[in-house]
């Protein structure tokens, strides 16, 4: 870890945040250069617990953005390889692919694959094995492009309703909707209706989203 040249800033890894806890890729020869410590955009926020509402930071998933035409046979085959229903995915839904991968519909030609670093690395290999280098598709690593905030508790829908214009009561488990939270664009995954939600938001806006949610939760804490 490099020293701060001015001495004014504390080292960023004093308390390693849940979403910053990633192994740095080792490089040879060791010891010749510093190793960078990872820190997510919520590194300076700590979880909030209440009986009615809790705000947490789940382990940061790696993210792959997938694009392919709605009728793409090669992408459908690749999806089947991953255990997904096909291509395009069911609209406005997310699906668990085994214990550590989730596939989220984003549009008729777009999906988001979430999972642990190794699970996504493995998925990437599976995808390129099926798709090869010429299939009409785009696969983009967007792992650090967004952060996830988990909102849970019996009043979690009331917290969301302060900024989300959708009727949360009719969103079933497995729903994945892209919508607004106040002035923020969010991707909302319903884990358990009325109780557990994952909110995905641009990394640069994650701290703002957290502060917004924490403030909204205040009345229930």
């Amino acid at each position: 870890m490099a020293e701060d040249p001015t001495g004014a800033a504390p080292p960023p890894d004093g308390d390693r945040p849940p979403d910053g806890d990633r192994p740095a890729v080792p490089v040879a020869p060791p010891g010749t250069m510093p190793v960078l410590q990872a820190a997510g955009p919520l590194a300076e926020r700590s979880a909030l617990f209440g009986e009615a509402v809790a705000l947490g930071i789940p382990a940061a998933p790696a993210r792959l953005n997938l694009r392919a035409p709605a009728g793409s046979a090669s992408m459908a085959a690749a999806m089947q390889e991953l255990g997904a229903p096909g291509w395009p995915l069911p609209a406005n839904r997310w699906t668990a692919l085994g214990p550590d991968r989730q596939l989220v519909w984003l549009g008729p030609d777009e999906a988001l694959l979430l999972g642990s670093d190794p699970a996504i690395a493995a998925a990437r290999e599976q995808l390129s094995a099926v798709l090869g280098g010429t299939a009409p598709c785009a696969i983009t690593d967007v792992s650090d492009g967004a952060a996830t905030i988990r909102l849970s508790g019996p009043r979690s829908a009331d917290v969301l309703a302060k900024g989300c214009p959708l009727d949360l009561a009719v969103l079933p488990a497995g729903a994945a909707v892209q919508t607004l939270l106040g002035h923020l664009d969010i991707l909302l995954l319903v884990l358990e209706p009325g109780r557990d939600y994952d909110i995905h938001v641009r990394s640069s806006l994650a701290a703002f989203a957290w502060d917004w949610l924490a403030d909204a939760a205040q009345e229930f804490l």
Partner: protein
Amino acid sequence: MFLIDCPWCGTRPQSEFAAHGEAQVVRPADPAAASDAEWAAYLFLRDNPKGRLLERWVHRHGCRRWFTVARDTATDRIEAVYPPAGGPAGPPSGPAGGDR
């Protein structure tokens, strides 16, 4: 604040969308062959009917897909929503704009 049926996400509030004007403006296939008047018409001339208008909308804060909306400009009533499956012109057999 009317509701719009996104062809993919279902009924959503207007605040999630953005409108981008008349839908059936066709970009000349060969701009170089277009006369100055034709090109200027493509750039600048738009219908502004009182009544039915086909508009391009995007689900900006949702799935980010573009589609065509038939809206009555006088009542804000949305008569139909067309996915751009038929191409950029929107509805396959829709009228060419509103009452002129």
